[in-house]
């Protein structure tokens, strides 16, 4: 168990800079998830921490010790690969023993460690099988077992669940979570699946094009996305984004409000700073579950600054417990609304949306959060 600290890490392949100045503090025992779209550099960052790729510039510390130029073994790291990377010609037992044998540990000790790990991972019955004779989930567990027996200071996982089917993925997710509870080992986990990130992480690091967009707990990312990228990326269905632009401030303009126009309608939007000019672009974000439908829900209280938008329903998806309404506004902007239960609304119906001002996220021209 050890803390990990990245200081201004850069990585280039030839002329292409893949990791751009990443700095990050990971505390001892923390479960950190790197999440981001495919190709954003998650695997590269993980391989840098692991020692499989050379760091172009920057400093990597593990347990307050500079490990920038050390090998994976010296860093005390174990990694679980996306394809599991089990040695195909070795039995499960030998797969788990390989790293320990390489380190020259004695046989009885190795045996004890493997039996212990096998018990935890329910691999006892499979120790003499070869990887080809195992199911996807079992291979996954062997890969994890191979990492555990090494007793690493830091565990690395690179999209470990992406080769499993949906139900197995949920099961393994729970197992990994439980394993982390019991081992209490610093874990860095890479995924492009934001649900995995939200459910597993103590701390999420959102990456985009080799840069850190935001670091925070799952709920802080959900509730207060720092920028448009994070707002779009976290949450399913994704946050609705509606274009707006500012209008000249009035003489008696109250602080903390912006005058703006959304598809031709004047509105007053709450905001952190009120230094703004005329005709600046804004993006209004609102999560699908925060939108109410007027006339459907009797309890909605409409406040003065709340938004009301007339819309038309394009499509209704009923999943039983919730329904998704796919809607377009008068100017064509698509909006998704989540309503609980089985909605009775139908296609082409005209309705009025109610967007509570307190639930609005507001982003300025450069995509940064201003509310």
């Amino acid at each position, binding site marked *: 168990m050890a803390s990990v600290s990245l200081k201004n890490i850069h990585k280039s392949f030839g002329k292409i800079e893949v990791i751009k100045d990443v700095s990050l503090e990971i505390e001892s025992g923390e479960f950190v998830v790197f999440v981001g779209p495919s190709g954003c550099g998650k695997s590269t960052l993980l391989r840098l921490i*692991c*020692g*499989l790729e050379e760091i172009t510039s920057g400093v990597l510390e593990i347990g307050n010790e500079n490990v920038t130029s050390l*090998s*994976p*073994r010296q860093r005390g*790291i*174990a*990694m679980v*690969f*996306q*394809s599991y*990377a*089990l*040695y*195909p*010609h070795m039995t499960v037992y030998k797969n788990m023993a*390989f*790293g320990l044998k*390489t*380190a020259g540990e004695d046989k009885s000790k190795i045996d004890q460690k493997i039996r212990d790990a096998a018990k935890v991972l329910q691999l006892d019955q499979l120790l003499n099988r*070869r*990887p*080809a004779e195992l199911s996807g989930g079992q291979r996954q567990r062997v890969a994890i077992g*191979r990492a555990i027996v*090494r007793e690493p200071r830091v565990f690395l996982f690179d999209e470990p669940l992406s080769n499993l089917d949906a139900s197995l993925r949920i099961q393994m997710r729970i197992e990994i979570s439980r394993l982390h509870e019991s081992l209490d080992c610093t874990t860095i986990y890479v995924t492009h699946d934001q649900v995995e990130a939200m459910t597993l992480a103590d701390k999420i690091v959102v990456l985009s094009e080799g840069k850190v967009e935001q670091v925070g707990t799952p709920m802080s990312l959900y509730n207060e996305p720092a920028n448009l990228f994070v707002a779009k990326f976290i949450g399913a269905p994704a946050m609705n984004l509606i274009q707006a632009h500012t209008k000249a401030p009035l003489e008696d303009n109250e602080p903390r409000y912006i005058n703006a126009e959304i598809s031709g309608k004047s509105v007053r939007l709450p905001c952190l700073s009120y230094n703004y000019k005329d005709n600046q672009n804004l993006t209004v974000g609102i999560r699908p579950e925060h939108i109410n439908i007027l006339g459907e829900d009797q309890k909605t209280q409409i406040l003065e600054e709340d938004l009301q938008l007339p819309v038309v329903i394009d499509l209704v998806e009923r999943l039983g417990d919730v329904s998704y309404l796919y809607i377009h506004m008068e100017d064509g902007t698509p909006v998704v609304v989540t309503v609980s239960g089985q909605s009775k609304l139908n296609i082409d119906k005209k309705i009025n949306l109610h967007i509570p001002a307190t639930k609005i996220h507001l982003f300025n021209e450069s995509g940064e959060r201003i509310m």
Partner: protein
Amino acid sequence: MSWHPKIPLHVFVFLVPGVLIYTIFSAWPLIDTLLLSLYEQDDSGARHFVGLANYNILLFDNEWSNGFWNAMWNNLKFFVIHMLVQNPISLLIAALVSNRMLKGANTYRTLIFFPTLLSVVIVGFIWQLILNPLWGVSETLLGYIGLDDYFDAWLGMEPTALITIALISVWQFVGIPLMLIYTALLGIPDELSDAAYVDGASPRRIFWKIKLPLILPTLGLVSILTFIGNFNAFDLIYSIKGGLAGPNFSTDILGTFFYRTFFGFQSSLGSPTMGATVAAMMFFVILVAVMIYFYLVQRKLQRYQL
């Protein structure tokens, strides 16, 4: 209870061309050769059946068997040199060339494969020139590094001629096993070596413990292909040493022995029936080796799903 699969007639129609071509050009010549080895031809050209008498002569009559066993023995040496030199070298080069860090790997690969594309006649000629004690360049080249005292007319001396030719053959064909092994190595996912590296294994240990076991089937294949190639070899020796495979038959292998037997050489007349007997023996030697390989080796070597 029996199940009669109904094979529609057109299946046979489609099979006919292939079967016909294979029979005419492959199976029949082989069978004809085997049959011919059971006959004897007298001076008038008439043939009569003699059973296994030709084999008896070839294997046990001193006049024939000395030459045959000499050729067989030389052929074995020829094969062993290939196994000890060609295949380890190609394994080594393949391992180096498949290294992700190596720049210009493709160039090396192409250069090493290049001699394989040359005609054997040219290779034989070039090496004869290079090694020629009178006007060859090798003595001068060795002189540059102070080794000219060790130079000798290797191709012309009984103890070294066969080894020299075998090494020339290795030089020419090292590219083929190299390609096979290289392809097999490329087939091993990078993540496997990455995983082993994270497990603390050195590159050498990764090679011996992870990569080598995974390419064993290919090494088996390379061995048997080498065997088949070597026991059918003829052209390089013929182009360097001619049909007499000198000096004093020290480079004679089954191919050249067969050539002299079948077509005759200088004053001695060729004998089609004895030639067929030698050819049949070559066929049996290769057949037995391939069978041993398939039944004993290949079945034990598992191909792993990577």
